[in-house]
């Protein structure tokens, strides 16, 4: 029974790298390009974990997280944000928006996968 | 619906727990128990795959409520995942009803 992970990032290169790391770990990956797209994808998909970037056009990560948490269907889904190690302010804002945890960039594929397994447990 | 009912006329009403008992399942579960208050109850935990802290609160609260009402409350057919979750959450089997957990 493989888990489905939704990745939300405006950079295709980044999405592909996430997909590579996550598929290698045996997850099914669905992707979105920004917050608005992410919420659209969620109408059809029910991911087990969401990984999202912060800085995106149209709708940034904070808006996206709030959108997910206010949707009864998805409010229990763990959300991990991609952030830099030093950026306490961003982490804090993301958490206040309802993020479950964070992944430090540049991400280490092993740690990414273990963080996902940890929050999905 | 996360909670379903199966009436078993030969014994007692059975409340069947759903697979995923996360934050979303807590309120419907509490409502289902409240609906059954005032009669003996058996809780079927066979299908449970995931038990979170808030649904555990509901289960404990229900057990205490039934005990206060001096009515029998029991958990039956617990799945392995359910028993593992109880152990992880530090709750001994007999805290959930006087009948304990029968496999």
């Amino acid at each position, binding site marked *: 029974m493989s888990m489905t992970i939704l990745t939300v990032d405006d950079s295709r*290169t980044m999405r592909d790298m996430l997909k590579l790391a996550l598929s290698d770990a045996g997850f099914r990956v669905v992707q979105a390009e920004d917050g608005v797209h992410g919420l659209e994808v969620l109408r059809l998909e029910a991911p087990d974990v969401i990984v999202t970037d912060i800085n995106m056009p149209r709708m940034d990560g904070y808006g996206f997280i709030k959108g997910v948490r206010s949707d009864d269907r998805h409010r229990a889904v763990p959300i991990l944000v991609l952030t830099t190690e030093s950026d306490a302010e961003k982490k804090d804002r993301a958490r206040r928006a309802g993020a479950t945890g964070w992944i430090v960039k540049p991400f280490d594929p092993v740690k990414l996968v273990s963080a996902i397994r940890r929050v999905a447990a | 619906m996360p909670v379903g009912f199966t009436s078993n006329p030969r014994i007692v009403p059975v409340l069947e727990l759903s697979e995923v008992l996360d934050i979303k399942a807590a309120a419907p579960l509490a409502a289902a128990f409240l609906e059954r208050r005032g009669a003996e109850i058996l809780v079927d935990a066979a299908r449970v795959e995931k038990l979170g802290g808030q649904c555990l609160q509901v289960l404990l609260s229900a057990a205490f409520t039934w005990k206060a009402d001096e009515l029998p409350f029991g958990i039956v057919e617990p799945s392995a995942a359910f028993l593992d979750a109880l152990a992880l959450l530090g709750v001994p089997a007999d805290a959930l009803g006087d009948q304990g957990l029968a496999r």
Partner: protein
Amino acid sequence: MDSLAAIKQTFFQECEEQLAELESGLLAIEGGIQDSETVNAVFRAVHSIKGGAGAFALDDLVRFAHVFETALDHLRAGLLLPSAEVTGCMLRAADVLADLVRAARDGGSVDAARCKALGEELAALDPDGAGTVPETDDGMDGIDFAPVLVELDDLDALPAPSGRHFTIRFTPHPDLYAKANDAAVILREITRLGDATITCDTSDVPLLSELDPEGSCLSWTIRLRTASDAAAVREVFEFVEGDCDVAISAEAEEDGEDLDVAALLARLQGEVAGETAEATAQQLIADETPLPGSEVIDLSEVRRQGKAHEVAPEPASKPEATAASTAAPPTIRVDLDRVDRLIDLVGELVINQAMLAQRVFEAGLARASGVAAGLDELEQLTREIQDSVMAIRAQPVKSVFQRIPRLVREVAALTGKTVRLVTEGEATEVDKTVIERLSDPLTHMIRNAIDHGLESPEARLEKGKPAEGQVRLSALHRSGRIVIEVADDGAGIDRPKVKAIAARKGLVAADAVLSDEEIDNLIFLPGFSTAASISDISGRGVGMDVVKRSIQALGGRISIASRPGEGSTFTMSLPLTLAVLDGMVVTVAGQTLVVPLTAIVETLQPKAVEVHGLGGAARVIAIREHFVPLIDVGRELGYRGNDADPLDCVALLVESEGGARNALLVDAILGQRQVVIKSLEANYRHVPGIAAATILGDGRVALILDVDAVVARSRSDAASHETFLAAAG
């Protein structure tokens, strides 16, 4: 490998799209469209290209994109106005960026001279004229997919359950569940650390009619036996910090003889655990059928009291656990706001005590009188209370030091150097606010030490050094401050090269005679560490001038000691707290002001021959062959209309942001003292040129001068200074 190659293809496609976006955005800006979304999109395009390029080690591309991004960052921040000259330069830069992308993709080459020229042109757009930027919010927010060494011990290997004992008290808040975390997830993480005995406290679970299904009424006590340290235990709660109450108390490390006792205790604990949960279940019924005097009710009362004081005591019904923990001091968890309130109150007490002392002095009471002696004792006590309260906020620097090994591994991997990190003094304590702001400068310094300090393994072997370089990070307390050192055993500062770079960049005259120390300190000058020393690892704004500025902002100082061939040591010294400040109390036009001591280099009495007018109100003072702008503080703050006569004043030579020196004119110096900082904005509002306020012994409010802001204001007042100084110096 195939997948990575495919991603690289994607990257180049994406680059083309970003380049198109960049060009159309820049054209729109040139055409007068300057809304933030357009500027953001342009910034994001370059940022994105840089991030991907970093992941694929396309160094030339990263370097150029970095300079470009810096300029765009200024545009975004409004520091740079989109004049025709600026947009023209950026459009040409976009062309070069496109060339670089295509060269990276197709293996061709670019016009290196053009690339370099445009890089310099972009750097010259820097509003500070310095080509460096402070690290912004998303300075590293790129797509970095750096190869990271995966260590086996990073994986979920079960540590041998031995070593330490912890008692963890864990009470989730409803928010923890709302963010899709769960108590079960946290408890599972704890069990991964070793042998855990988990007890659920169900005493707050109400009957169904009163239950909030999405509330939180359970708490847990975990006894953990683990090989991991307290930091690892705390890390389990990383994601839920603030969404739960956690108290972790450690017990003494056991030695061999204690093993059996520990096992026995663990077993007892297990039995007690069973009893507690059962007992608490009964207690719930007791809510309706009271059982006076029962032990269980005592327990719940203790818990409730504990909650009211936001402390998490050991459950009273567990004598075994209490006995076992006597070796380690018990800890409580206190809301930070309460501590801050206490610090505020103690600050007021200090002020009050000083006021009282002054009144007594004014009343002419004899020094030997009983009142004076009592006051001395009061002063002593007040100081002790202040120190003790400050100590509550103190934390070991370990939390910052812990992140360094990973950083070292990453930078070492990227630079191809082998590095051994030695840390000392992790337990050294410093105020929480200082710790929080220590991380960035320290990260820069470590990167710098590896990237620029250490030689390549080959070069080291040639010089007869071990191939593995060493970086030593240490912390210690020295005369009321914390001193942090980053030392490498690399090549030391290449002084001829440093001087040559500084001369080329116009930071010093080519024929200037400089001491070794003066040369070493050139690396702290803004503008020094741009093009020549920029590297992919160092990333944005990593110039040592930025490091120096952020340390100064904390009231600290940084110095460097370097020996050719043996290595360099950067030493930063910081105050232990940001709640008090060492200041020089001065008067300006009848007002009392406090100037932070860390900003002051020296004080002097201006002489007529040293002061020169520059036309208008602008004046400079000659200090040892250098002309330094003379700033009348009274005039800058609007306390007086006309400039004071410098000859009647005292000049404070201050070093501001980026090492620039200015002389501040004040009327008189009253003395030096430690003052308690009061935020002006919290009590009043932001005042330009003023950082905060304090209350002096005589009860008067004195404003604390923001030296950088005063200097910046005066500079914008008189741009003519700059041109003259450039000519003169």
